[in-house]
């Protein structure tokens, strides 16, 4: 057999590598040589974005607005006026929920004035005692699903109360209760719109791609410029980030609804409205609920990042604790965030799946059982809080609101644990750390930085060409060119090096673990459950244990990257291997293959396309974590995005850097996706 005609891609790839290394060693560093580094031709882009944003915000379309303070009309820019209105409405909603949960005066101020409140001492909105909120959550859980959910709610609320995190938790909750529904409704609306109109669909797709690969940080600057700083700005950043997956999943679900179900709805005499809300959307609810789950997870993941632009709550405290290296406290806060996420997710799921009983002939008390019970809880909780005023001194009424950080804490225990680890394993940890940094990471970083730009282009575009023909190569080349023409090419290379390292290690671990676990049904289920659980942790949480062990170094970031990015690699491997039809296993066994042969020649090729999509996700996850790692000090694109946050004119820098990161992700996505699709087609899978 002629090997080259059978495996043309291998030959092509070998040739590509030869060209790449020739270029790599031929072209040395020289600033004037365009083959070494392209000139930063679009250096001015951030400035242009800044100017455009400023013009839009302060000058475009001036309108006359009546100002009640000075009792005169004055000119203001339209956009600013609109963003102000949005900010106001959001802030009011968040404050309103927050004051129901924690008490305060701001809602009253909105309807009166600060003077009124300071003159009348009684004008203060009382908080719901924490016992009432906890009781309400337990009742809701019981009503919607039963004992299990009630127990979970009880556990979560008592954990939060006992550890003295009630106040920040309620602050975070009030923020999530506004941001999550907005994201869900917005995502649902956009998804339905894209489903109805092809044109909207095609315009939305690339926007969603970019939005989902842009790092969290880079949204913050524009949001800050247009909406200012505060809880509302955090909510808006969260909405921007949490909506795209909701749109995606809504669209996916709607497209899967069988035409016969739609026809059945039409033949039942549904109006367009009924068809949409009673037939199509509920039928697609499985995917839409995954979307809701994603939204809730994103909201809580953003809780930390949103605190950069003034969102109060757990996120802010976690950030503080991380900066002060108070590992124990960070851990407790992280668990609070995770618990809130899980409870909200389960509640929303149970609510969407609840069933009605039509036949029971209920009395008034039975029908209003839960409302009455809640009333009872309310009265009992309020009484308890009142009794508490006799026992505890002012501000420390444990029956009313648990004072912040005055609960039990396990911080000392964790700190002792960290100290013990440091004392015991100091040398081995340090040795590992030093080895990794000097022998692996530094050389790898240097190799990436020593790559001439032409060589990079040849390698990446060549790979895209071999795997996906000219179209792919041109798209990928376009993404790369944008990055090469900014002044951050070197930074992008560092980001790429960290991501590559993470992806390689994650893929090896993920594919190995996935393969081993997919050998039988039980372990597959178990590992998928583990993946699910890990995915519910907001991404920030991963940084806590690694800082514990490795301190603030590149190693920490990379280990967090690896842990986080291994999840999709494992999940997709298991799913891919499990989806190989059992008949093929039987056919293989009857042909006399052993286990290993079966894996190599039957399972692996068939699962390959799905595994490729897993690697694709791994790349996206790794990029995210690398950028988040900027928090604990790296010198890649993420660090520059973080710097843009504190810059008054950072909007241009933030967005351009964000696009650079997004384009790295999209380039990889383009290559892997076309490859996976081509393999799928070749295997006749769909």
């Amino acid at each position, binding site marked *: 057999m002629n090997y080259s005609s059978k495996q043309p891609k291998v030959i092509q790839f070998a040739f590509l590598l030869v060209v790449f290394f020739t270029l790599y060693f031929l072209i040395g560093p020289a600033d004037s040589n365009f083959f070494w580094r392209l000139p930063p031709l679009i250096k001015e882009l951030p400035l242009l974005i800044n100017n455009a944003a400023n013009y839009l915000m302060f000058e475009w379309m001036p309108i006359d607005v009546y100002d009640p303070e000075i009792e005169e009309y004055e000119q203001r820019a339209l956009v600013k006026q609109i963003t102000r209105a949005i900010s106001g409405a959001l802030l009011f909603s968040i404050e309103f929920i927050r004051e129901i949960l924690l008490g305060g005066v701001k809602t009253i101020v909105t309807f009166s004035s600060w003077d009124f409140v300071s003159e009348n001492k009684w004008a203060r909105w009382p908080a719901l005692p924490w016992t009432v909120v906890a009781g309400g959550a337990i009742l809701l859980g019981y009503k919607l699903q039963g004992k299990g959910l009630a127990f979970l709610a009880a556990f979560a609320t008592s954990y939060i109360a006992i550890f003295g995190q009630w106040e920040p938790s309620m602050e975070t909750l009030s923020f999530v209760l506004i941001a999550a529904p907005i994201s869900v409704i917005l995502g649902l609306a956009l998804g339905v719109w894209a489903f109805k109109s092809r044109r909207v669909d095609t315009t939305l797709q690339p926007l969603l791609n970019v939005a989902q690969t842009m790092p969290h940080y880079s949204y913050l600057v524009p949001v800050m410029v247009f909406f200012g700083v505060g809880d509302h700005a955090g909510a808006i950043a969260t909405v921007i980030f949490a909506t795209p997956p909701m749109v995606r999943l809504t669209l996916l679900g709607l497209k899967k609804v069988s035409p016969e*179900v739609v*026809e059945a709805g*039409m*033949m039942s005499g549904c*109006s367009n409205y009924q068809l949409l809300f009673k037939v199509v959307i509920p039928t697609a*609810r499985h995917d839409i609920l995954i979307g809701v789950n994603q939204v809730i997870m994103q909201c809580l993941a953003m809780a930390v990042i949103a605190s950069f632009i003034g969102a109060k709550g757990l996120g802010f405290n976690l950030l503080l604790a991380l900066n002060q290296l108070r590992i124990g406290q960070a851990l407790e806060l992280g668990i609070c965030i995770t618990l809130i996420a899980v409870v909200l997710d389960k509640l929303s799921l149970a609510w969407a799946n609840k*069933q*009605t009983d039509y036949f029971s002939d209920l009395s008034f008390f039975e029908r209003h059982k839960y409302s009455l019970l809640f009333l009872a809880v309310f009265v009992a909780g309020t009484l308890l809080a009142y009794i508490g005023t006799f026992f505890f001194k002012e501000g420390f009424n444990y029956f009313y609101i648990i004072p912040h950080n005055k609960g039990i804490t396990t911080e000392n225990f964790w700190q002792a644990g960290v100290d013990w680890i440091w004392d015991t394993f100091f040398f081995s940890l340090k040795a590992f750390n030093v080895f990794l940094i000097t022998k692996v990471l530094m050389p790898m970083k240097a190799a990436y930085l020593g790559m001439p730009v032409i060589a990079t282009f040849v390698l990446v575009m060549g790979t895209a060409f071999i795997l996906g023909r000219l179209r792919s190569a041109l798209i990928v080349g376009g993404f790369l060119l944008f990055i090469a023409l900014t002044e951050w090419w070197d930074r992008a290379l560092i980001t790429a090096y960290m991501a590559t390292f993470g992806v390689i290690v994650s893929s090896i671990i993920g594919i190995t673990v996935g393969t081993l676990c997919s050998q039988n049904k039980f372990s597959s289920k178990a590992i998928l459950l583990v993946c699910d659980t890990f995915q519910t942790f907001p991404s920030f949480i991963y940084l806590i244990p690694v800082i514990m062990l490795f301190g603030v170094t590149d190693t920490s970031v990379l280990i967090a990257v690896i842990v986080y990015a291994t999840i999709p690699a494992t999940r997709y491997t298991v799913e891919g291997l499990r989806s190989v039809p059992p008949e093929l296993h039987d056919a293989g066994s009857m042909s006399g293959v052993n286990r290993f042969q079966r894996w190599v020649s039957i399972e692996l090729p068939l699962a390959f396309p799905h595994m490729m999509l897993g690697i694709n996700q791994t790349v996206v996850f790794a990029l995210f974590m690398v950028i988040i790692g900027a928090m604990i000090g790296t010198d890649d694109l993420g660090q520059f995005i973080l710097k843009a946050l504190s810059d008054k004119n950072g909007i241009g820098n933030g967005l351009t850097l964000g696009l650079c990161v997004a384009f790295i992700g999209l380039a990889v996505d383009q290559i892997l996706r076309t490859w996976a699709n081509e393999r799928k087609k070749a295997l006749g899978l769909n």
Partner: protein
Amino acid sequence: MPTQEAVCSKEQAVIKCDSVYKIFGDNAKKMLQSSQGNVDAKTFQDAGCIVGVNNASFEVYEGELLVVMGLSGSGKSTLLRCISRLSDATSGSVFIDGQDIMAMNNKQLIELRRNKMGMVFQSFALLPHKTVLENIAFPLQVKGVSTQDSIKKAMEMVELVSLGGRENYFPRQLSGGQQQRVGIARSLAVEPDIWFLDEPFSALDPLIRKEMQDEFLRLQSVLNKTILFITHDFDEALRLADRIAIMKDGVIEQLDTPANIILNPATDYVHKFTEEVPREKVLRIESVMDPVDKTEEISDLVVSKDAIIETVAEAVLSQQKAVSVIDENGEVVGALHCSHVINVLFGSSAQKAN
């Protein structure tokens, strides 16, 4: 007299199709206009159009069960969707009770579907998030019937299709046959006059299919709806139909009673279906009897004109003389000769042997 009444109702067709065309493709309308009613599937295909329904004209009378039979891709489901206006016909007109549904606006159409039409689907098309009861009550609820009344009515329907005790199950918890019972109950909940069934039993196992066909015949004998039934199964068509329309490539090849189709297939294509059919199991005495001849000697045996030949063949063949045939009122309407029965039983194989 009952026959007189039948003739009266026959004059008013419940469903009437008048040269209905359905052509898929971007410039279908233009192509159709330029072809001036002479549609050739091949030329259309070359122009990027696919012919779904090609000049269908027929009527369905009140209480009649018309089966449209055709293999996949023959356009039978497309025809049904044109009649229910789930998709718009490219040209031609469809009348329901004399009203042109092509001219209806969306509101009128919804009104029509809410009160006059019911439809059963091949893949059941139940709403996965609703229980059996809620699925059946759904057409009533979208109409605005109160929850209490709609649930009460739905409960009656549950009993009608013998699903009592499973009303709180979700579709995923039911077998295929049970799911289709729910589909049938849902389509009947608003008590429609017209009942569309789109391959309702095709997705079921043979034994269940037989059971559902019996159930369907039982329901129809109680309800007496005007029915348009789509199937790809010729045996099913023979078993159920008052009349059968056989479709191929969008064209109705033949529309007639099952007996006439078997005895006189109009085209070679129809003949292919009929030649393997055991006639004695399908034909009724009525289609092989001779007119009454007073001079002839008649045996004592009496058979009903609606009897299937197979069921009486043994008795008839044991007689020397012709057998008299009676109708449902006991009046003699014809005479049956053994030679005809023998012809039906062995005729086709005898022809083949020659």
